[in-house]
């Protein structure tokens, strides 16, 4: 069931030092408002977020002060 799959997969942000050519990459200025808020809050807290990330795909890289890979572990 889709719901349980979502619950079981915790979203995380992992800093990466390089970006592969086949990566999907966005700058934070391209994030929709809820996604931007989630991203900033998650980085600020440094903790595993308690709510799902809106509008991000597994493996997507976000360019901020460093590059962060969004992962559903």
């Amino acid at each position, binding site marked *: 069931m889709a719901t349980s799959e979502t619950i079981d997969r915790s979203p995380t942000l992992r800093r990466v030092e390089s970006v592969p*050519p086949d990566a999907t*990459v*966005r*700058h934070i*200025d*391209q994030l929709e408002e809820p996604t931007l808020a989630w991203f900033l809050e998650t980085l600020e807290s440094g903790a595993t977020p308690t709510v799902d990330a809106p509008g991000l795909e597994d493996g997507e890289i976000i360019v901020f002060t460093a*590059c962060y890979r969004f992962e559903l572990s």
Partner: protein
Amino acid sequence: MTEYVIIGDGISGSSAAETLREEDPDANITIITDEGEPLYNRILIKEHAKGKLPEAPISIHDEDWYAEREIELSLNTHVTTIDSEEKIVRIHEGEDIPYDKLLIATGGTPTQLPVPNSDAEGIHHFWTFQDARAIRESAEAADDAVVVGAGLLGIDFAAVCGAQGVEGKYLMRGDRWWRYALSADGAEIMHNGMRDVGVEPVFDSGVDHFETDDDGQVAAAVDPNGERYECDFAGVAIGLTFNTEFLYGTDLEMENGIVVDEYMETNLEDVYAAGDITRFYDVLLGEQAQNGSWGSAKEQGRVAATNMAADAQSEEFQWVSSYSITHFDFPFLSFGHPTLGDEHAERRYSDTEWRRVAFKDGKIVGGVLIGDLSPQSTFKKLMRQQRDVADQAELLLEQSVDMDKLAPAQEQ
């Protein structure tokens, strides 16, 4: 069947095309662009120039994207004029293109510095993917560089220098970077960020002329004080000149950009405009405004297309823009119109944290956050709500902004 023509394949033109296809599945849609490649991610080209990103992720659409949506894409095509009476777009070669509804989304071109030798080899402007490739190539081979233009675009050149190990001199006309939005306190944080990556800001400077070598390659910049700065390349970012030459023979209302209302309509029937090129009516600000951010351009394209397809004033453009600088260890975010308004409040919190909020008629119209971006969501919400909060500036400057502490809107 409606014929839609879009001039410009940046994010606003492309966003409009996508919306038009969704709203009007049977229509003919044509995009004309003088660039040689389909839509790419203009925000990320600076990361490519810095050497941080390969080319592939920067492309957004390939030509198949247009074909799959039955959108006719015409690359390397220059529009010479439009005839709004006959409803025709004239191009430099080939047949005229008729339209029922036209969207102009041609953006701008970097302004050249009006000084001797400003067209020398090695003097770069930063706007297209091709520009980014050339800047990257120059930077990888350079030891010294000069940067001109103390604003949001110029700082990208400084970041390229820092990332590519180039010693940079950032020549500014005034006493600080982005003096229209930052006080000395805020600017000092940015100056230190530049210094940390090896770029030295030089104040009360600028460029009087460039010197070249025997091959016509830039060799130095000389400022109005007579100081000489040797360089292997120079980056110039003093603003944009809007691409409106092809419109000079028309009756389109222009005022440093194309004037549109909140529906993205121009003064000419069935002619719309979107993106950087517009001077739009900002419903939150209550006056005409301009904005060059990605999100604003994308949304303007969507709203214009929605109204074009509806053949009515179906949706107005209402948007709080964001523009971030992510080159340093600390983040920077400008939102709304931080250089406008009739009063402002600001505070410095640490060596890397500063905040400014601009108000007009008591309402937030923009601001700048350095270091701590956590209040951005709250400030944007207050802007959208058009809350009268200027008299509660102290609360807005607290490190953590709590909306619950603000006086309820209905009691004001």
